[in-house]
């Protein structure tokens, strides 16, 4: 069963992310800060990580992304932020993020977007895994 890690320091927002991820019927594990997330990534194998960008530091989300990619390049990471800039967005994509989403408001629109992206990210991971096995 696919494992998803949800990282956010705000419990309400983490709950929303968890809800969005659980809707796809996958096992979801939570972390409330970047350090804990990195530790969990080192201990477990995740298919997908959904992380906030700004937690204990300005861009700890990128460290979570790096840790996930170092552990397994096929782990997909979705970075979410409320304070997005094009530069950070490009940085995240360059580091191998599956997507970079801006949480403009705690409304349902961005949440629906995340819910849409989760199965896409998992499908992408499976496709890449198959491709690499073929090679």
């Amino acid at each position, binding site marked *: 069963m696919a494992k998803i890690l949800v990282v956010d320091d705000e419990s309400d927002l983490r709950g929303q992310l968890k809800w969005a991820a659980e809707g796809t019927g996958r096992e979801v594990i939570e972390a409330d800060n970047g350090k804990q997330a990195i530790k969990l990534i080192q201990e477990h194998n995740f298919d997908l990580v959904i992380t906030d960008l700004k937690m204990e530091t300005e861009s700890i989300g990128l460290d979570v992304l790096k840790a996930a990619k170092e552990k397994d*390049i096929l782990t997909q990471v979705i970075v979410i932020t409320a304070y997005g800039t094009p530069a950070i967005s490009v940085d995240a994509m360059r580091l191998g993020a599956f997507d970079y989403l801006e949480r403009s408001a705690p409304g349902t629109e961005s949440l629906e977007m995340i819910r849409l992206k989760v199965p896409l990210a998992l499908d992408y991971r499976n496709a890449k895994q198959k491709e690499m096995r073929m090679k």
Partner: protein
Amino acid sequence: MKNEQPPPDTAIVKVVLAFFEKALDVLKPPLMKFFVVLIVTLLLAFVLVRNNINTQLGFVLVIMVIVLFAIITATLQYAEMRLHYTKLTEEELKRALRDTVTELQAEKKESQRQHTKKKKPRKKA
């Protein structure tokens, strides 16, 4: 005897709110807004002409409003199309970047693996 009040009937409020929510959703596209303005203007013109207030002024007003809102609607529609196109382009670029980065990371891992293999000292026979 207790003076018990019945609970407020929230169901009706919910239905009304849902109706307005749906109505706003329907009115989201610029073209729909244009149609609403068109209908209101035509009704207004009908009243003006029927009551003989000023038939000519009524027609001029109607034409002006229609032209003005047609221009606004066209501009909004164009902006929406541009935004949609930009989003599609962004998605395509993201996809391309994602593929490239994944391939590069895979190659890097492979070369690191081979490098560590080479570094291992050979066992003596």
